[in-house]
């Protein structure tokens, strides 16, 4: 009988060892981290790291080989996330959308020409992408978006506005969801376009978050011409294309962060031991419970990876399933709980925004909102997984 197996194969062990060696050699050679407020410097730093990964053969690890990726197993991808996190390597940063949303979408849905044009620069860290989905009046109800694209010869003329766009100031491309059929309601009549951010008519206005940083921007589109050749998928089929992208976002994107959270939790325990709060059984048990939660979330990520690997082996394209909603729902709350617990452990110093954990506490507040609110995740679980009647 073949057992359920957490034993890594020899290939996987070799992969981990090579990666660990490479990280050990490479990380000391990286330049110092740029200031969080200096977006061009952040872009340069993130792209340099991506280039280093590319040169070492780690770029697009989980992308299929025919898209320029390494065709690694989902397990290898998890090992990559784990090892880079444990080694303190840079995050994906400005390349998040390219590597985790737009790139995989183009890999699955794009034409050969589109794949050849867009995928290599993403993998080499040469072009940065941002996301143009949400609008001020279309958040949870993404399908109600109003940005319209009117066909004019071999181009669409796009007018409207997008919001919550990360890295907009330094991006080269935007994955843009627009309405191409004004007469079709809701999710019908949408198309997925790749738009150059330097096209005439594109204006970016940074949005300041409650943490004081400018993580997001509004993007205003005033008769921006986007060649029809830059549409991915069929006209008016953008909703389906987008769902592929969103299920990527809700699947693997946070797995590395779970490792980081578990690490923070251990540091937190040390800090509590040093400042005496460890004597408080209520705090200690709270941290113990968080340890269980993050341990289990990591196991769930491994489980999801096994499922994805199975889908790959049996002919699927490795698109994460709706079960990713469970991961997203629990992880978002666990992260917020972690930094609330950090505040308790820090005591009065939790009021110091100069402390990394206080800033993380603030930024964690977006986790139950961004990429599908917790309310939306629960709707998805109830209706798509459990098959409950459509909520009204």
């Amino acid at each position: 009988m073949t057992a359920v197996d957490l034993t890594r194969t020899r290939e996987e062990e070799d992969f981990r060892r090579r990666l660990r060696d490479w990280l050990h050699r490479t990380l000391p050679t990286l330049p110092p981290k740029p200031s969080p407020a200096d977006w061009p410097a952040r872009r340069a730093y993130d792209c340099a790291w991506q280039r280093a990964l590319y040169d070492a053969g780690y770029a697009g690890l989980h992308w299929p080989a025919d898209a320029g990726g390494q065709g690694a197993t989902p397990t290898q991808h998890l090992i990559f996330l784990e090892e880079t996190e444990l080694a303190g390597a840079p995050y994906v940063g400005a390349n998040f959308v390219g590597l985790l949303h737009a790139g995989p979408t183009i890999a699955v849905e794009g034409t050969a020409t589109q794949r050849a044009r867009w995928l290599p620069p993403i993998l080499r860290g040469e072009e940065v992408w941002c996301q143009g989905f949400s609008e001020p009046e279309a958040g949870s109800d993404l399908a109600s978006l109003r940005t319209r694209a009117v066909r004019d010869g071999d181009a669409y003329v796009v007018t409207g506005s997008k919001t919550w766009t990360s890295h907009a100031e330094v991006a080269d491309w935007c994955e843009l969801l627009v309405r191409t059929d004004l007469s079709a309601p809701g999710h019908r009549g949408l198309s997925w376009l790749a738009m150059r951010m330097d096209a005439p008519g594109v204006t970016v206005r940074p949005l300041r978050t409650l943490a004081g940083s400018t993580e997001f921007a509004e993007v205003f589109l005033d008769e921006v011409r986007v060649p029809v050749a830059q549409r991915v998928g069929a006209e008016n089929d953008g909703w389906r294309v987008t769902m592929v992208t969103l299920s990527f976002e809700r699947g693997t994107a946070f797995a590395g962060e779970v490792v980081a959270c578990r690490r923070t939790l251990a540091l937190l325990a040390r800090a509590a031991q040093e400042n005496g709060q460890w004597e408080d059984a209520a705090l200690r048990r709270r941290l113990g419970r968080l340890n269980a939660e993050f341990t289990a979330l990591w196991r769930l990520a491994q489980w999801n990876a096994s499922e994805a690997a199975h889908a790959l082996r049996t002919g699927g394209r490795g698109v994460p399933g709706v079960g990713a909603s469970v991961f997203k729902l629990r992880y978002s709350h666990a992260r917020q709980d972690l930094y609330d617990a950090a505040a308790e452990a820090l005591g009065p110093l939790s009021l110091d925004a100069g402390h990394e954990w206080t800033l993380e506490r603030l930024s964690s507040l977006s986790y139950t909102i961004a990429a599908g609110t917790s309310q939306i995740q629960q709707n998805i679980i109830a209706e798509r997984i459990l098959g409950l009647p459509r909520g009204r």
Partner: protein
Amino acid sequence: MDFRLSEDQRALRAGMRDLLAARFPREKLRKSAEADPAKRAPLDRALWRELGEIGMFSLRLSEKEGGAGLGLPEAVLVFEEAGRALLPGPLAATHLAAGLVPGAADGATVVTALEGDGVVEQLDAADAVLLLEGPTVRALPVDDGTGALAAARPLRSVDPTTPLHYLPPADEAMQGAERAGQAKGLAVGRLCGEAALLTAAQQLGSAARTLEMAVAYVKVRTQFARPIGAFQAVQHVCARMLARTEIARSSVYAASLTMTLGDTCAAKLLADEAAVRNARDCLQLHGGLGFTWDADVHLHLKRAWVRQAQWQSAAKAEEALAAALLEDPGDCMTETANRANGAV
């Protein structure tokens, strides 16, 4: 690394489910849960022997010892099914006793256990009691003539399908069993961890079952001219039940492979929480019906309370998980290679 179940494992689980559907249908559960204690069915020894025959207790023994040479992952699947059906009895204790106590492996003997908290399940039905404190594992015949268990007094068990006795921890009669003040031996520690995990597996099965019951009910129960499952508040309760179940499931399955302290403690904690809270949510969603004796939901809740108190309490699990944070430089996610197939 492959976390998915193999075909053989799926077959094992389906076999157990079929056996329980045939030999422990709902009527049997209800019979053992009669409201009048005098009318309750005692532990079904014939069924116990059948469980022994299909290998519920012996499956991790080697083929030479009469077992199937399987591991904890398979045991967990079988115990999950038992929890789903609310199969009564000291299943984990008898499973641990296979190979230690004659007759345990084939279901001829019923073996229960005395834990630190002093609660013993099914003492009247059992032939022997495992003692898991002190440096070594010991088994005591229930009627050993020494009167060691004479001080045990029956509780009016909150779970009608699980008779319980209580032995006050300070009891003199048990001093010979070296209960107090001694460090647990390695074997004892390992067996306690396995028992906690097998108990967690039962909790997982129960949590999955109350989720199913809740979903089925809210699809058909109509109020305000539509199924209550169309109300968002109800939907979200069900969604959180599913999330609890799936988090517990990955945790229990992973622990069956790694058997690390962290995975095992997390598995027991999260499976207990899933079983108790899912049962409570299921009860709430059933409204007044859920509060009746005739509905099964209270049996899940009460069993979940009993299992929660067995082998590892939440307080102990949380303290152990907290202590692990201090010992560990942060890379506990990197599991050590699991013992091949986890066979004992």
